């Protein structure tokens, strides 16, 4: 059963430390999305890749966040340095090239990040 996988599932770190979250999209999917979920803001799109190329990262704080796809099976989201306000659940989602519309996204289980 094809699923998006994310690691780690939980991460607790101290302010100022670097955090790297990883996502493995469903095999054959060519679009990858990173979202952040908080109680206050809900689900926010941070960045979006198609065929490994970044298409939109306008939702991401540029000074501390970076997103990459080193290869088709791995997407990374990095925060350096981390701050308490970055505490949230970070979701990765992938989409199929056979999907006509972007709404057909398959979400991973998320990484719950706590920055103290």
């Amino acid at each position, binding site marked *: 059963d094809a699923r998006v996988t994310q690691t780690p599932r939980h991460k607790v770190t101290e302010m100022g430390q670097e955090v790297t979250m990883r996502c493995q999209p469903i095999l054959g999917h060519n679009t990858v999305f990173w979202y952040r979920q908080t109680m206050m803001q809900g689900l926010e*799109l941070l960045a979006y890749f198609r065929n490994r190329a970044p298409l939109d990262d306008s939702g991401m704080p540029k000074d501390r966040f970076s997103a990459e796809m080193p290869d088709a099976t791995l997407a990374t989201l990095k925060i350096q340095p981390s701050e308490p306000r970055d505490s949230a659940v970070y979701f990765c989602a992938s989409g199929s090239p056979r999907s006509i*519309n*972007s709404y057909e996204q398959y979400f991973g289980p998320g990484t719950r990040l706590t920055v103290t």
Partner: protein
Amino acid sequence: QQQVKQSPQSLIVQKGGISIINCAYENTAFDYFPWYQQFPGKGPALLIAIRPDVSEKKEGRFTISFNKSAKQFSLHIMDSQPGDSATYFCAASMKAGGSEKLVFGKGTKLTVNP
């Protein structure tokens, strides 16, 4: 203009009742309106979606009603079951700057009492 407003924030329904969640949007560039269901500790999962040229779509106990002139759409869950207890997100999809974006509502936490 890219916001999707969702209400209510929380909803409690008795088993067998009808759950209704409403969403409204402003931007007429949105071209698809999906609903996502999220259980605690899990990622959102696509539940049902509708195009703006369709007024209603039904899948099992789940129905989307769409009012293009009012820029509103709603999710109806018929014969609600305790297993439907989850957070529901409406969303709107649009093409922007060569990419495609989903804009989510803030979510509705549904509790179905047995």
